[in-house]
């Protein structure tokens, strides 16, 4: 299980491909991979967003993300899991987060991937500051609950 913080743009597909190359011992064991990729949109709460600054708490972020992966591993049967999260100056269409879970069966992979994503959104110390079209900046105040239907 691995956590990676990226200071530069990352290619989610390439990250996964590279990570899977090291999968010598679980080849043939995993039947299910569930992934989530969060991508920067060019709109939020009715405004056009030019760019975004993503700050984090180095040290606590990694600690908290590892904790989330361990918790997911206690709740579901997972073979491996990966979190990649971007920080720094972000542009629309950049990947912000990648969560991947590998398991023998799909129920575990889906549930664990979603759990990790929700736990990350509500507890991992990252904060977004948006730059609006006008150049005005604003902190994003809170994340929504992804399980709730909007």
């Amino acid at each position, binding site marked *: 299980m691995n956590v990676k913080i990226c200071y530069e743009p990352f290619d989610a597909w390439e990250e996964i491909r590279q990570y899977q190359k090291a999968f010598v011992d679980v080849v043939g064991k995993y039947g299910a991979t569930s992934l989530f990729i*969060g991508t920067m949109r060019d709109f939020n709460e009715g405004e056009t967003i030019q760019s975004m600054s*993503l*700050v*984090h*708490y180095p*040290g*606590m972020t990694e*600690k*908290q993300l590892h904790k989330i992966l361990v918790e997911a591993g206690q709740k579901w049967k997972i073979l491996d899991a990966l979190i990649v*999260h971007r920080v720094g100056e972000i542009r629309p269409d950049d990947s*912000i*987060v990648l969560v991947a879970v590998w398991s023998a069966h799909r129920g575990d992979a889906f549930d664990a991937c979603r759990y990790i*994503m929700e736990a*990350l*959104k*509500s*507890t*991992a*110390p*990252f*904060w*977004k*500051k948006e730059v609006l079209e006008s150049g005005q900046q604003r*902190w*994003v*105040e*809170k*994340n929504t609950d992804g399980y709730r239907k909007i």
Partner: protein
Amino acid sequence: MPPKAADYCVVARMLVSIKVRYFASLSEKAGKSESDMAVSRTLKVSEVWRLDTGGIAMPDNLLAAVNMEYADLEAQVYDGDEVAFFPPVTGG
């Protein structure tokens, strides 16, 4: 061997060093992103906020961590601890 009176004196003058960090909107509110406090007793997290910010009203949704783990505002802070204050997280 029982402690000597001099040892008590040393204990009474103990120095508690605490690193304080502020993130996101709270670093703007506090006017700093970090500071080093030196006090003569252990403090609760809420006291760290009060003393280090000079009494800025505590936001309702304030989150705190001690040594990079989420902590209650009533939690005790010891010498060498790092205390962080931040608003609700918005990553992902």
